[in-house]
C-alpha cells in the first residue's frame, strides 16, 4: 500500500523554510529602510550580510526543530498538497518580494 504522508521532520522543516523565506525578505526591507537595523546588524558580526545569514540559518534550525518536537507530541500530519503549497508559496513569495523591493522601492 502506498504511503501518502510526510515524515514529521519533512513537514516541520518545510514550514520553517517557508516562514524563513518570507522572514528573509522582511529583514531585507527592514535593513534597507532603517539605518538603526542596518547598523545593529553591522555591529553584531562586523558585516550586515554575515549577521543576516547567521540569523536566518539559526531561525530555520530553531523553528524546524521546535515544530518537530511539537509534532511528535501532537501526532499531527500536514497533508501533501498543503505542504507543497506552503513551501513553494513561501520560497517564491520571499524571492519575488526581494526582487520587487529592489526594483520599485529601493
Amino acid at each position: 500500500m502506498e504511503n501518502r504522508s510526510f515524515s514529521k521532520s519533512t513537514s516541520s522543516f518545510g514550514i520553517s523554510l517557508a516562514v524563513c523565506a518570507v522572514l528573509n525578505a522582511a529583514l531585507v526591507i527592514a535593513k534597507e529602510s532603517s539605518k538603526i537595523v542596518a547598523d545593529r546588524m553591522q555591529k553584531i558580526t562586523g558585516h550586515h550580510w554575515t549577521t543576516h545569514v547567521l540569523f536566518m540559518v539559526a531561525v530555520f534550525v530553531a523553528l524546524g526543530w521546535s515544530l518537530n518536537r511539537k509534532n511528535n507530541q501532537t501526532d499531527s500530519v500536514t497533508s501533501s498538497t498543503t505542504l507543497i503549497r506552503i513551501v513553494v508559496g513561501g520560497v517564491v513569495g520571499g524571492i519575488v518580494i526581494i526582487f520587487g523591493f529592489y526594483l520599485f522601492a529601493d
Partner: protein
Amino acid sequence: MIETILMAHVIFGSGCILSALWVLVDTLNATEANAWRIKWMSRATALCMWLAVLVGGYWYVVFYHADKAIILQGPWPFAHNYFMETKEHFVITLLLLASYLPIAASTNLAANKEAARLVLWVAGMVVVVALMAEGHGAIISAGVKVGLLAKPH
C-alpha cells in the same frame, strides 16, 4: 590567487545545480534501486551550496568593496544596485532550500509518491534559483569588466 576563491564559488554553485538536477531526474524515476543515489545527491546539493556560500561570502565580505567601487563608477551601476543587492539576499533562501532537500529526500520516495512530488518541487526550485544566481553573478562580473574598460588609460 585571490581569483581562485571566486572560481571556487562558481564551481560549487555549478555543482549545486548539477546535483539538484540529478535528484530531479532520478526522482522522476524513483525506485528502490536508486533511492541511495537520490539521498546522496541531495546531500551533495546541500554541501555544494554551503561551500558556494562560504567561499562567496568570504569574497563578498573581504574583497567585494573594490569591485563595488569600480561597478558604481562605471557604465553599469545596476550590476551592483540591483543584481548584487538581490543576489546577496535571495541566495540565503537558496541556502535554506538546498539544506531542506536532503530532509525532504529522506523518505522512501519509491513508496511515497507525494513525498517524491515534494522533492521534485524542491529540487526544481533549487535548479531555477541557482541558475538565477549564476546569471546574476555573470552580470556583476560584466559590471566590473565594463567599469574597468571605461576607465581612462
